[in-house]
């Protein structure tokens, strides 16, 4: 699809979501308030994913959408994705600096140079907070975590499927390589079933993360070569421009080594995550079935609200 046609498709869908009151614009691309009905669909998507996860007995946990800076740096987010990152800055100056800050604000001048980096950053993916809590051994048989939280990525876009502040539902498995690979296969089947039941026409593809720059091209090729990321792509804006609405990611021993997480036999644990872009699923459902959930197919409603 040509850029102009794609932009028109973004504007058309976003316009309908805003007109229906499901998205409430905040003045910045990709940051929206949501209607109660939108939130009801969003909760239904998360609950449907949680029902699929239930046989694994995941440990439910909740983290705020902030990462300690030490963790943010340890997972090399700024190194790999500086353009998407959200390190947080605040003011730590004295009265003189405060006066300068006020002068700049009054004159509409930039003031970023008067701020300093804090000890936190916005969470770019909701599995990151989990690993630092797992340092040392995981129990025999490994462990599964489940969480659902807001994330932030700095990618302002008119595409309503691509928000800067968005929610991600995730299960994370940390165990031996065999256990993690079996679990990954299970989730490929579970997501296929979920999207099939939601009627969202998802197809899978081997994918890579949006690493930055020239170095990123090598990183992305490595990720594809090992088939570490498999996405479920939904054709919200046509078959040629599908959007990832879920993914299954295998990290090998990357996080196990980084956070010194060991399996019962003392080896670095392997990990994988099964992630649903829950806000993306909501927008895809509104696009597919219309702005009134009352008129959605009963089969879809039964998945969301059994």
């Amino acid at each position, binding site marked *: 699809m040509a850029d102009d046609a794609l932009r028109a498709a973004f504007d058309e869908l976003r316009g309908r979501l805003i007109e229906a009151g499901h998205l409430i614009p905040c003045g910045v691309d990709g940051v929206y308030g949501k209607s109660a009905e939108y939130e009801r669909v969003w909760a239904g998507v998360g609950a449907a994913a949680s029902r699929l996860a239930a046989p694994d007995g995941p440990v439910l946990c909740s983290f705020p959408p902030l990462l300690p800076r030490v963790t943010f740096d340890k997972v090399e987010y700024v190194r790999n994705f500086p353009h998407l990152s959200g390190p947080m800055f605040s003011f730590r100056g004295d009265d003189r600096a405060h006066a300068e800050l006020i002068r700049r604000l009054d004159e509409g001048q930039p003031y970023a140079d008067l701020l300093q980096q804090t000890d936190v950053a916005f969470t770019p993916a909701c599995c990151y907070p989990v690993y630092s809590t797992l340092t040392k051994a995981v129990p025999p048989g490994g462990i599964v975590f489940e969480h659902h939280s807001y994330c932030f990525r700095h990618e302002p876009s008119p595409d309503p499927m691509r928000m800067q502040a968005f929610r991600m539902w995730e299960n994370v498995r940390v165990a031996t390589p065999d256990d993690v690979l079996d679990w990954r296969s299970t989730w490929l089947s579970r997501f296929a079933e979920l999207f099939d039941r939601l009627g969202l026409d998802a197809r899978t593809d081997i994918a890579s993360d949006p690493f930055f720059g020239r170095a990123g091209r090598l*990183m992305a090729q*490595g990720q594809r070569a090992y088939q570490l990321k498999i996405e479920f792509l939904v054709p919200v804006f046509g078959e040629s421009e599908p959007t990832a609405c879920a993914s299954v990611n295998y990290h090998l021993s990357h996080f196990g080594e980084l956070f010194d997480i060991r399996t019962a036999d003392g080896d670095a644990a392997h990990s994988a995550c099964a992630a649903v872009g829950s806000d993306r699923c909501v927008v895809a459902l509104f696009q597919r079935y219309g702005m009134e959930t009352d008129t959605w197919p009963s089969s879809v409603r039964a998945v969301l609200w059994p």
Partner: protein
Amino acid sequence: MARVDEIRSIVAEYGRLGVDVGQVADEDSLYSAGMTSHASVNVMLALEDHFDVEFPERLLHRSTFESILNLDQALAELLDQ
């Protein structure tokens, strides 16, 4: 120092191989020897600094960094220009 030895020395320092670089033949896979994608990026940047070249887009492929031999061939091409 021959160019291939200079490459070896940079691979030894930045490639984070799981084995001694002396055990890796010029044509052996560096990835099989334990070099990660992260490490290959560091090798690329170190080679660029050392030889004062820049790997163009068309050479930013895993195969370029697959072996010391491939790196030597890529650098031969870049240094000829």
